[in-house]
Protein backbone atom coordinates (compact mmCIF):
# COMPACT_ATOMS: atom_id res chain seq x y z
CA UNK A 1 0.00 0.00 0.00
CA UNK A 2 1.32 3.42 -0.98
CA UNK A 3 -0.27 6.71 0.01
CA UNK A 4 0.48 10.12 -1.48
CA UNK A 5 0.12 13.17 0.76
CA UNK A 6 -0.22 16.35 -1.30
CA UNK A 7 0.08 19.75 0.35
CA UNK A 8 -0.84 22.62 -1.98
CA UNK A 9 0.60 25.69 -0.30
CA UNK A 10 0.34 29.32 -1.37
CA UNK A 11 3.94 29.30 -2.54
CA UNK A 12 5.07 25.67 -2.77
CA UNK A 13 3.33 22.39 -3.40
CA UNK A 14 4.75 19.38 -1.57
CA UNK A 15 4.24 15.65 -2.03
CA UNK A 16 5.25 12.83 0.33
CA UNK A 17 4.86 9.18 -0.70
CA UNK A 18 4.56 6.70 2.15
CA UNK A 19 4.49 2.90 2.13
CA UNK A 20 2.54 0.68 4.54
CA UNK A 21 5.54 0.56 6.90
CA UNK A 22 5.32 4.34 7.21
CA UNK A 23 8.54 4.72 5.30
CA UNK A 24 8.99 7.74 3.08
CA UNK A 25 9.77 6.49 -0.40
CA UNK A 26 9.67 9.74 -2.34
CA UNK A 27 9.12 13.46 -1.88
CA UNK A 28 8.92 16.60 -3.99
CA UNK A 29 8.64 20.33 -3.47
CA UNK A 30 7.76 22.55 -6.44
CA UNK A 31 6.78 26.18 -6.70
CA UNK A 32 3.01 26.66 -6.85
CA UNK A 33 2.18 28.14 -10.25
CA UNK A 34 -0.85 30.02 -11.46
CA UNK A 35 -2.48 26.76 -12.52
CA UNK A 36 -2.69 24.77 -9.30
CA UNK A 37 -3.80 21.54 -10.94
CA UNK A 38 -0.83 21.63 -13.25
CA UNK A 39 1.48 22.25 -10.29
CA UNK A 40 -0.03 19.27 -8.50
CA UNK A 41 0.69 17.06 -11.52
CA UNK A 42 4.27 18.30 -11.67
CA UNK A 43 4.87 17.73 -7.98
CA UNK A 44 3.36 14.28 -8.14
CA UNK A 45 5.45 13.28 -11.17
CA UNK A 46 8.59 14.43 -9.42
CA UNK A 47 7.84 12.43 -6.28
CA UNK A 48 6.97 9.34 -8.33
CA UNK A 49 10.25 9.67 -10.17
CA UNK A 50 12.16 10.00 -6.87
CA UNK A 51 10.45 6.85 -5.58
CA UNK A 52 10.92 4.99 -8.89
CA UNK A 53 7.25 4.00 -9.08
CA UNK A 54 4.35 4.85 -11.36
CA UNK A 55 1.09 6.58 -10.58
CA UNK A 56 -0.83 3.29 -10.74
CA UNK A 57 1.16 2.08 -7.74
CA UNK A 58 -0.48 4.65 -5.50
CA UNK A 59 -3.50 3.36 -3.62
CA UNK A 60 -4.66 6.57 -2.06
CA UNK A 61 -4.28 10.32 -2.44
CA UNK A 62 -4.80 12.70 0.48
CA UNK A 63 -4.84 16.45 -0.12
CA UNK A 64 -4.17 19.30 2.30
CA UNK A 65 -3.07 22.92 2.20
CA UNK A 66 -4.84 26.10 1.13
CA UNK A 67 -5.23 24.79 -2.42
CA UNK A 68 -6.41 21.30 -1.54
CA UNK A 69 -9.47 21.66 -3.79
CA UNK A 70 -7.03 21.67 -6.72
CA UNK A 71 -6.48 17.94 -6.27
CA UNK A 72 -9.68 16.68 -7.92
CA UNK A 73 -8.57 13.04 -7.77
CA UNK A 74 -7.96 13.09 -3.99
CA UNK A 75 -9.61 10.25 -2.06
CA UNK A 76 -9.81 12.45 1.00
CA UNK A 77 -8.92 15.88 2.28
CA UNK A 78 -7.29 16.83 5.53
CA UNK A 79 -7.29 20.21 7.28
CA UNK A 80 -3.95 21.96 7.57
CA UNK A 81 -4.19 21.87 11.36
CA UNK A 82 -4.53 18.09 11.51
CA UNK A 83 -1.89 17.62 8.82
CA UNK A 84 0.59 19.70 10.81
CA UNK A 85 -0.24 17.94 14.08
CA UNK A 86 -0.09 14.42 12.66
CA UNK A 87 3.13 15.01 10.75
CA UNK A 88 4.92 16.66 13.65
CA UNK A 89 3.82 13.97 16.11
CA UNK A 90 5.16 11.30 13.78
CA UNK A 91 8.66 12.80 13.56
CA UNK A 92 8.76 14.05 17.16
CA UNK A 93 6.50 11.97 19.44
CA UNK A 94 7.25 14.16 22.45
CA UNK A 95 5.77 17.19 20.73
CA UNK A 96 3.07 19.18 22.53
CA UNK A 97 3.17 22.42 20.56
CA UNK A 98 3.58 22.57 16.79
CA UNK A 99 4.39 25.94 15.25
CA UNK A 100 4.04 26.11 11.50
CA UNK A 101 5.28 29.14 9.60
CA UNK A 102 4.46 29.11 5.93
CA UNK A 103 4.72 31.66 3.15
CA UNK A 104 1.39 33.37 3.83
CA UNK A 105 0.15 32.06 7.14
CA UNK A 106 1.29 30.73 10.45
CA UNK A 107 -0.44 28.50 12.93
CA UNK A 108 0.10 26.94 16.31
CA UNK A 109 -1.32 23.49 17.07
CA UNK A 110 -1.50 21.85 20.50
CA UNK A 111 -1.38 18.05 20.52
CA UNK A 112 -1.79 15.58 23.37
CA UNK A 113 0.48 12.63 24.19
CA UNK A 114 -1.30 10.52 21.56
CA UNK A 115 -0.94 13.13 18.85
CA UNK A 116 -4.58 14.23 18.92
CA UNK A 117 -5.35 17.87 18.29
CA UNK A 118 -6.34 19.76 21.44
CA UNK A 119 -6.37 23.34 20.23
CA UNK A 120 -5.04 25.59 17.51
CA UNK A 121 -4.63 29.24 16.51
CA UNK A 122 -4.18 30.66 13.07
CA UNK A 123 -2.97 33.93 11.56
CA UNK A 124 -3.53 34.49 7.86
CA UNK A 125 -4.59 38.13 7.73
CA UNK A 126 -1.21 39.80 8.08
CA UNK A 127 2.14 39.03 6.47
CA UNK A 128 4.14 40.05 9.54
CA UNK A 129 4.29 36.56 11.08
CA UNK A 130 4.94 34.67 7.85
CA UNK A 131 7.70 33.78 5.41
CA UNK A 132 6.58 36.65 3.15
CA UNK A 133 8.30 38.98 5.61
CA UNK A 134 11.68 37.38 4.88
CA UNK A 135 11.00 37.34 1.13
CA UNK A 136 10.27 41.06 1.13
CA UNK A 137 13.39 41.92 3.15
CA UNK A 138 15.98 39.80 1.39
CA UNK A 139 15.52 41.96 -1.68
CA UNK A 140 16.57 45.08 0.19
CA UNK A 141 19.54 43.47 1.92
CA UNK A 142 20.75 41.89 -1.32
CA UNK A 143 21.96 38.70 0.34
CA UNK A 144 21.07 35.10 -0.52
CA UNK A 145 18.28 33.62 1.58
CA UNK A 146 20.55 31.15 3.41
CA UNK A 147 23.07 33.77 4.31
CA UNK A 148 20.29 36.05 5.51
CA UNK A 149 19.34 33.46 8.13
CA UNK A 150 22.88 32.62 9.16
CA UNK A 151 24.10 36.21 9.54
CA UNK A 152 21.40 36.83 12.14
CA UNK A 153 23.33 34.53 14.51
CA UNK A 154 26.36 36.87 14.45
CA UNK A 155 24.36 39.90 15.56
CA UNK A 156 24.29 41.43 19.01
CA UNK A 157 20.59 42.23 18.77
CA UNK A 158 20.88 45.91 19.61
CA UNK A 159 18.74 47.27 16.79
CA UNK A 160 14.99 47.13 17.41
CA UNK A 161 12.46 46.98 14.60
CA UNK A 162 9.69 49.47 15.30
CA UNK A 163 7.40 48.53 12.44
CA UNK A 164 5.00 45.66 12.79
CA UNK A 165 3.76 45.82 9.23
CA UNK A 166 5.95 44.35 6.48
CA UNK A 167 5.31 47.36 4.22
CA UNK A 168 6.41 49.77 6.95
CA UNK A 169 9.35 47.51 7.83
CA UNK A 170 10.60 47.85 4.25
CA UNK A 171 11.00 51.61 4.71
CA UNK A 172 12.57 51.05 8.10
CA UNK A 173 15.11 48.60 6.69
CA UNK A 174 16.01 51.07 3.95
CA UNK A 175 16.65 53.71 6.65
CA UNK A 176 18.78 51.28 8.65
CA UNK A 177 20.84 50.54 5.54
CA UNK A 178 21.26 54.28 4.97
CA UNK A 179 22.50 54.64 8.53
CA UNK A 180 25.11 51.94 7.82
CA UNK A 181 23.69 49.54 10.38
CA UNK A 182 25.48 46.20 9.75
CA UNK A 183 23.38 43.73 7.77
CA UNK A 184 23.59 41.00 10.45
CA UNK A 185 21.95 43.41 12.92
CA UNK A 186 19.18 44.18 10.44
CA UNK A 187 18.70 40.48 9.77
CA UNK A 188 18.42 39.87 13.50
CA UNK A 189 15.92 42.73 13.92
CA UNK A 190 13.76 41.25 11.15
CA UNK A 191 13.91 37.74 12.61
CA UNK A 192 13.08 39.04 16.07
CA UNK A 193 10.08 40.89 14.64
CA UNK A 194 8.75 37.79 12.89
CA UNK A 195 9.40 35.62 15.96
CA UNK A 196 7.53 38.13 18.10
CA UNK A 197 4.45 37.83 15.89
CA UNK A 198 4.66 34.05 15.63
CA UNK A 199 5.14 33.69 19.39
CA UNK A 200 2.03 35.75 20.05
CA UNK A 201 0.01 33.32 17.93
CA UNK A 202 1.56 30.36 19.77
CA UNK A 203 0.79 31.90 23.16
CA UNK A 204 -2.88 31.91 22.25
CA UNK A 205 -2.86 28.12 22.55
CA UNK A 206 -0.23 28.08 25.32
CA UNK A 207 3.38 26.96 24.95
CA UNK A 208 4.13 23.48 26.23
CA UNK A 209 7.35 21.51 25.64
CA UNK A 210 8.38 20.03 23.34
CA UNK A 211 7.95 22.73 20.73
CA UNK A 212 8.46 21.67 17.11
CA UNK A 213 8.65 24.25 14.35
CA UNK A 214 7.71 23.29 10.79
CA UNK A 215 6.98 25.00 7.49
CA UNK A 216 9.36 26.74 5.14
CA UNK A 217 10.61 29.31 7.63
CA UNK A 218 11.87 26.52 9.92
CA UNK A 219 14.79 26.28 7.48
CA UNK A 220 15.86 29.78 8.46
CA UNK A 221 18.33 29.33 11.34
CA UNK A 222 18.09 33.00 12.24
CA UNK A 223 14.33 32.75 12.69
CA UNK A 224 14.57 29.57 14.77
CA UNK A 225 17.17 31.23 16.99
CA UNK A 226 14.95 34.29 17.49
CA UNK A 227 11.92 32.10 18.17
CA UNK A 228 13.82 30.19 20.89
CA UNK A 229 14.70 33.44 22.57
CA UNK A 230 11.19 34.82 22.20
CA UNK A 231 9.54 31.70 23.63
CA UNK A 232 12.24 31.13 26.25
CA UNK A 233 12.33 27.43 25.49
CA UNK A 234 14.04 24.95 23.18
CA UNK A 235 12.58 24.67 19.71
CA UNK A 236 13.07 21.57 17.59
CA UNK A 237 13.28 21.47 13.81
CA UNK A 238 12.75 18.09 12.14
CA UNK A 239 16.05 16.94 10.68
CA UNK A 240 15.25 13.62 8.99
CA UNK A 241 12.77 15.25 6.66
CA UNK A 242 12.57 18.85 5.49
CA UNK A 243 10.33 20.86 7.85
CA UNK A 244 8.15 22.12 4.99
CA UNK A 245 7.23 18.54 4.08
CA UNK A 246 5.67 17.74 7.48
CA UNK A 247 2.05 18.61 6.58
CA UNK A 248 2.26 16.50 3.40
CA UNK A 249 3.65 13.71 5.56
CA UNK A 250 0.75 14.18 7.98
CA UNK A 251 -1.69 13.94 5.07
CA UNK A 252 -0.07 10.72 3.84
CA UNK A 253 -0.16 9.23 7.35
CA UNK A 254 -3.87 9.90 7.62
CA UNK A 255 -4.43 7.75 4.51
CA UNK A 256 -2.77 4.64 5.92
Amino acid at each position, binding site marked *: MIVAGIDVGSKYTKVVLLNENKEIIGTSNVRTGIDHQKTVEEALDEALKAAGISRDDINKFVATGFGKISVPFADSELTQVVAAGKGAYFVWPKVKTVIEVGA*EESRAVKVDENGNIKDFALADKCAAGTGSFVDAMVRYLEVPLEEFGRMSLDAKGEVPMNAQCVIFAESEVVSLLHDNVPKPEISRAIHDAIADRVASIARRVGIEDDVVVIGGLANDVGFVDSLKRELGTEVYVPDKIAPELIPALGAALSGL
Partner: protein
Amino acid sequence: MEAIQESEYWRWPETVWIDESKNWKEAEVISCGIDLGSVSSQAVIMLDGELYAYSNLRTGSSSAASSEKALGSILDKIGDMKREDIHYIVGTGYGRVSIPFAHKTITEIACHGRGANYIYGPSVRTVLDMGGQDLKAIKIDHRGKVVNFLMNDKCAAGTGRGIEVVADLLSIPITEVGSMSLEVYPDDEPEPVSTTCIVFGKSEILGLIRKGWPKNRILAAFFRSVATRVVELLERVGVEADFAITGGISKNPGVVVRVQDMLGMKALETEYDPQIAGAIGAALFAKALYEKQTGKR
Protein backbone atom coordinates in the same frame (compact mmCIF):
# COMPACT_ATOMS: atom_id res chain seq x y z
CA MET B 1 17.22 50.42 -14.34
CA GLU B 2 14.11 48.66 -13.31
CA ALA B 3 14.33 49.99 -9.77
CA ILE B 4 14.56 53.60 -10.99
CA GLN B 5 11.62 53.23 -13.31
CA GLU B 6 9.55 51.47 -10.70
CA SER B 7 10.23 54.10 -8.09
CA GLU B 8 8.62 56.87 -10.14
CA TYR B 9 4.99 55.81 -9.87
CA TRP B 10 4.62 56.70 -6.21
CA ARG B 11 6.09 60.16 -6.78
CA TRP B 12 3.73 63.04 -6.06
CA PRO B 13 4.43 66.73 -6.75
CA GLU B 14 6.27 68.64 -4.03
CA THR B 15 5.16 72.21 -3.34
CA VAL B 16 6.57 75.42 -1.87
CA TRP B 17 4.08 78.29 -1.71
CA ILE B 18 4.07 81.81 -0.30
CA ASP B 19 1.36 84.47 -0.15
CA GLU B 20 3.03 87.31 -2.05
CA SER B 21 0.39 89.80 -0.87
CA LYS B 22 1.65 89.63 2.73
CA ASN B 23 4.72 91.36 4.15
CA TRP B 24 6.23 89.33 6.98
CA LYS B 25 8.07 92.36 8.36
CA GLU B 26 4.75 93.88 9.40
CA ALA B 27 3.76 90.88 11.48
CA GLU B 28 3.81 90.96 15.26
CA VAL B 29 4.01 87.20 15.72
CA ILE B 30 5.73 84.93 13.21
CA SER B 31 5.01 81.34 14.09
CA CYS B 32 6.03 78.12 12.41
CA GLY B 33 4.69 74.57 12.47
CA ILE B 34 6.55 71.60 11.09
CA ASP B 35 4.76 68.31 10.57
CA LEU B 36 7.42 65.68 10.01
CA GLY B 37 5.49 62.70 8.72
CA SER B 38 6.69 59.24 7.83
CA VAL B 39 6.23 59.83 4.11
CA SER B 40 5.77 63.60 3.67
CA SER B 41 6.88 66.65 5.65
CA GLN B 42 5.24 70.05 5.76
CA ALA B 43 6.38 73.38 7.14
CA VAL B 44 3.98 76.29 7.60
CA ILE B 45 4.75 79.91 8.50
CA MET B 46 1.92 82.05 9.86
CA LEU B 47 1.86 85.78 10.36
CA ASP B 48 -0.32 86.72 13.36
CA GLY B 49 -2.25 83.49 12.93
CA GLU B 50 -2.79 83.82 9.17
CA LEU B 51 -1.27 81.42 6.66
CA TYR B 52 1.71 83.00 4.91
CA ALA B 53 3.79 80.21 3.43
CA TYR B 54 4.07 76.45 3.33
CA SER B 55 6.08 73.62 1.88
CA ASN B 56 5.10 70.02 1.28
CA LEU B 57 8.02 67.69 0.57
CA ARG B 58 8.85 64.02 0.70
CA THR B 59 10.49 62.91 3.96
CA GLY B 60 14.04 61.69 3.39
CA SER B 61 15.96 59.05 5.30
CA SER B 62 17.05 61.57 7.96
CA SER B 63 14.32 63.26 9.99
CA ALA B 64 16.51 66.19 11.03
CA ALA B 65 17.59 66.88 7.45
CA SER B 66 13.97 66.63 6.24
CA SER B 67 12.81 69.21 8.76
CA GLU B 68 15.69 71.54 7.78
CA LYS B 69 14.71 71.12 4.14
CA ALA B 70 10.98 71.70 4.73
CA LEU B 71 11.60 75.01 6.50
CA GLY B 72 14.68 75.90 4.42
CA SER B 73 12.76 75.61 1.15
CA ILE B 74 10.25 78.21 2.37
CA LEU B 75 12.93 80.57 3.68
CA ASP B 76 14.77 80.26 0.35
CA LYS B 77 11.64 81.23 -1.50
CA ILE B 78 10.87 84.17 0.79
CA GLY B 79 14.46 85.28 0.37
CA ASP B 80 15.07 87.71 3.22
CA MET B 81 13.64 85.80 6.19
CA LYS B 82 16.01 83.88 8.45
CA ARG B 83 15.11 81.13 10.86
CA GLU B 84 15.95 83.51 13.76
CA ASP B 85 13.19 85.84 12.60
CA ILE B 86 10.60 83.21 13.51
CA HIS B 87 9.38 83.69 17.06
CA TYR B 88 8.27 80.20 17.86
CA ILE B 89 8.48 76.79 16.15
CA VAL B 90 6.36 73.77 17.07
CA GLY B 91 7.16 70.32 15.72
CA THR B 92 4.58 67.61 15.22
CA GLY B 93 4.15 64.30 13.41
CA TYR B 94 5.84 60.96 13.53
CA GLY B 95 9.36 62.45 13.49
CA ARG B 96 8.67 65.46 15.70
CA VAL B 97 11.31 64.56 18.30
CA SER B 98 13.97 64.75 15.59
CA ILE B 99 13.42 68.41 14.67
CA PRO B 100 16.53 70.02 16.17
CA PHE B 101 15.29 73.63 16.09
CA ALA B 102 11.73 73.18 17.39
CA HIS B 103 10.93 75.01 20.65
CA LYS B 104 8.29 72.45 21.55
CA THR B 105 6.62 69.34 20.20
CA ILE B 106 2.88 68.60 20.19
CA THR B 107 1.17 65.37 19.09
CA GLU B 108 -0.15 65.24 15.54
CA ILE B 109 -3.64 64.37 16.78
CA ALA B 110 -3.92 67.73 18.57
CA CYS B 111 -2.37 69.56 15.61
CA HIS B 112 -4.64 67.96 13.01
CA GLY B 113 -7.68 68.81 15.08
CA ARG B 114 -6.57 72.41 15.45
CA GLY B 115 -5.50 72.65 11.80
CA ALA B 116 -8.79 71.23 10.51
CA ASN B 117 -10.63 73.80 12.58
CA TYR B 118 -8.61 76.57 10.87
CA ILE B 119 -8.92 75.16 7.35
CA TYR B 120 -12.53 74.01 7.44
CA GLY B 121 -14.00 76.31 10.06
CA PRO B 122 -15.55 75.78 13.51
CA SER B 123 -18.37 73.51 12.30
CA VAL B 124 -16.05 70.50 11.87
CA ARG B 125 -16.63 67.75 14.41
CA THR B 126 -15.06 64.70 12.75
CA VAL B 127 -11.66 64.77 11.09
CA LEU B 128 -10.35 61.86 9.13
CA ASP B 129 -6.60 62.16 8.71
CA MET B 130 -5.27 59.80 6.09
CA GLY B 131 -1.51 59.93 6.20
CA GLY B 132 1.47 58.12 4.81
CA GLN B 133 1.77 55.48 7.50
CA ASP B 134 -1.27 55.95 9.66
CA LEU B 135 -4.96 56.55 9.68
CA LYS B 136 -6.70 58.64 12.33
CA ALA B 137 -10.30 59.43 13.13
CA ILE B 138 -10.43 62.51 15.36
CA LYS B 139 -13.47 64.09 17.06
CA ILE B 140 -13.08 67.79 17.83
CA ASP B 141 -15.12 70.57 19.40
CA HIS B 142 -15.88 74.01 17.93
CA ARG B 143 -12.41 75.29 18.91
CA GLY B 144 -10.62 72.37 17.28
CA LYS B 145 -9.84 70.75 20.62
CA VAL B 146 -9.63 66.95 20.50
CA VAL B 147 -12.54 65.19 22.20
CA ASN B 148 -11.75 61.63 21.14
CA PHE B 149 -9.69 59.77 18.56
CA LEU B 150 -8.81 56.36 17.18
CA MET B 151 -5.83 55.49 15.06
CA ASN B 152 -4.22 52.70 13.12
CA ASP B 153 -0.47 52.98 12.80
CA LYS B 154 0.35 49.28 12.86
CA CYS B 155 -0.73 48.23 9.41
CA ALA B 156 -0.21 49.69 5.93
CA ALA B 157 -3.75 48.87 4.79
CA GLY B 158 -5.65 52.13 4.47
CA THR B 159 -2.53 54.31 4.45
CA GLY B 160 -0.75 56.30 1.77
CA ARG B 161 2.19 53.93 1.80
CA GLY B 162 -0.14 51.06 0.94
CA ILE B 163 -1.51 53.01 -2.01
CA GLU B 164 2.02 53.80 -3.19
CA VAL B 165 2.84 50.10 -3.24
CA VAL B 166 -0.19 49.34 -5.40
CA ALA B 167 0.54 52.29 -7.73
CA ASP B 168 4.04 50.87 -8.19
CA LEU B 169 2.72 47.39 -8.81
CA LEU B 170 0.31 48.58 -11.50
CA SER B 171 2.78 51.15 -12.91
CA ILE B 172 0.28 54.00 -12.65
CA PRO B 173 1.22 57.39 -11.17
CA ILE B 174 -0.07 57.85 -7.61
CA THR B 175 -1.82 61.07 -8.67
CA GLU B 176 -3.95 59.12 -11.17
CA VAL B 177 -4.87 55.89 -9.39
CA GLY B 178 -7.87 57.40 -7.60
CA SER B 179 -9.56 58.97 -10.62
CA MET B 180 -8.82 55.89 -12.71
CA SER B 181 -10.63 53.69 -10.17
CA LEU B 182 -13.72 55.88 -10.52
CA GLU B 183 -14.04 55.00 -14.21
CA VAL B 184 -16.01 51.91 -13.21
CA TYR B 185 -17.77 53.52 -10.24
CA PRO B 186 -20.45 52.96 -9.13
CA ASP B 187 -22.14 50.78 -11.74
CA ASP B 188 -19.35 48.30 -12.42
CA GLU B 189 -17.76 48.41 -8.99
CA PRO B 190 -16.25 44.96 -8.36
CA GLU B 191 -16.04 43.16 -5.02
CA PRO B 192 -13.27 44.55 -2.81
CA VAL B 193 -9.85 42.90 -2.69
CA SER B 194 -10.36 40.23 -0.05
CA THR B 195 -7.13 40.55 1.89
CA THR B 196 -6.49 43.38 4.32
CA CYS B 197 -2.71 42.99 4.28
CA ILE B 198 -1.01 44.92 1.47
CA VAL B 199 1.62 42.19 1.06
CA PHE B 200 -1.09 39.58 0.44
CA GLY B 201 -3.09 42.14 -1.51
CA LYS B 202 -0.18 42.41 -3.94
CA SER B 203 -0.42 38.68 -4.65
CA GLU B 204 -4.17 38.98 -5.06
CA ILE B 205 -3.77 41.89 -7.47
CA LEU B 206 -1.19 39.95 -9.49
CA GLY B 207 -3.80 37.22 -9.75
CA LEU B 208 -6.35 39.73 -11.08
CA ILE B 209 -3.81 40.98 -13.66
CA ARG B 210 -3.31 37.40 -14.83
CA LYS B 211 -7.05 36.98 -15.10
CA GLY B 212 -7.01 39.90 -17.52
CA TRP B 213 -8.79 42.46 -15.36
CA PRO B 214 -8.33 46.04 -16.63
CA LYS B 215 -6.37 48.28 -14.30
CA ASN B 216 -9.29 50.59 -13.49
CA ARG B 217 -11.28 47.61 -12.24
CA ILE B 218 -8.36 46.33 -10.16
CA LEU B 219 -7.95 49.79 -8.63
CA ALA B 220 -11.68 49.95 -7.93
CA ALA B 221 -11.46 46.63 -6.04
CA PHE B 222 -8.44 47.90 -4.12
CA PHE B 223 -9.90 51.29 -3.20
CA ARG B 224 -13.15 49.62 -2.21
CA SER B 225 -11.20 47.67 0.42
CA VAL B 226 -9.29 50.79 1.51
CA ALA B 227 -12.56 52.73 1.89
CA THR B 228 -14.15 49.88 3.83
CA ARG B 229 -11.27 49.92 6.26
CA VAL B 230 -11.41 53.69 6.66
CA VAL B 231 -15.16 53.66 7.27
CA GLU B 232 -14.79 50.92 9.89
CA LEU B 233 -12.38 53.10 11.84
CA LEU B 234 -14.66 56.15 11.52
CA GLU B 235 -17.69 54.23 12.69
CA ARG B 236 -15.84 53.06 15.78
CA VAL B 237 -15.22 56.65 16.83
CA GLY B 238 -18.66 57.78 15.57
CA VAL B 239 -19.14 60.20 12.69
CA GLU B 240 -20.69 63.52 13.52
CA ALA B 241 -21.23 66.33 10.98
CA ASP B 242 -19.46 68.34 9.75
CA PHE B 243 -16.96 65.90 8.41
CA ALA B 244 -13.56 66.82 6.95
CA ILE B 245 -10.59 64.93 5.54
CA THR B 246 -6.95 65.91 5.95
CA GLY B 247 -3.68 64.30 4.94
CA GLY B 248 -2.33 63.14 1.61
CA ILE B 249 -5.09 60.65 0.77
CA SER B 250 -7.67 63.45 0.89
CA LYS B 251 -6.32 64.22 -2.60
CA ASN B 252 -7.30 60.77 -3.81
CA PRO B 253 -10.86 60.86 -5.21
CA GLY B 254 -10.92 57.04 -5.40
CA VAL B 255 -10.89 56.87 -1.61
CA VAL B 256 -12.76 60.11 -0.84
CA VAL B 257 -15.78 59.43 -3.11
CA ARG B 258 -16.20 55.89 -1.81
CA VAL B 259 -15.85 56.92 1.84
CA GLN B 260 -18.40 59.74 1.36
CA ASP B 261 -20.89 57.44 -0.30
CA MET B 262 -20.46 54.71 2.30
CA LEU B 263 -21.00 57.24 5.09
CA GLY B 264 -23.77 59.05 3.20
CA MET B 265 -21.99 62.27 4.12
CA LYS B 266 -19.99 64.81 2.13
CA ALA B 267 -16.62 65.99 3.32
CA LEU B 268 -16.13 69.74 3.53
CA GLU B 269 -14.06 71.29 0.78
CA THR B 270 -11.26 73.79 1.10
CA GLU B 271 -9.08 76.15 -0.88
CA TYR B 272 -6.10 75.11 1.27
CA ASP B 273 -3.89 72.11 0.76
CA PRO B 274 -5.41 69.59 3.20
CA GLN B 275 -2.02 67.95 3.61
CA ILE B 276 -0.78 70.93 5.65
CA ALA B 277 -3.48 70.73 8.35
CA GLY B 278 -1.07 69.28 10.92
CA ALA B 279 1.57 71.93 10.28
CA ILE B 280 -1.06 74.70 10.44
CA GLY B 281 -2.24 73.36 13.79
CA ALA B 282 1.36 73.31 15.01
CA ALA B 283 1.93 76.91 13.83
CA LEU B 284 -1.24 78.05 15.63
CA PHE B 285 -0.07 76.35 18.82
CA ALA B 286 3.32 78.03 18.29
CA LYS B 287 1.65 81.44 18.17
CA ALA B 288 -0.30 80.76 21.35
CA LEU B 289 2.80 79.48 23.14
CA TYR B 290 4.81 82.52 22.08
CA GLU B 291 2.12 84.87 23.32
CA LYS B 292 1.95 83.03 26.61
CA GLN B 293 5.73 83.16 26.96
CA THR B 294 5.94 86.87 26.25
CA GLY B 295 2.96 87.67 28.46
CA LYS B 296 0.86 88.97 25.58
CA ARG B 297 -1.97 86.74 26.63
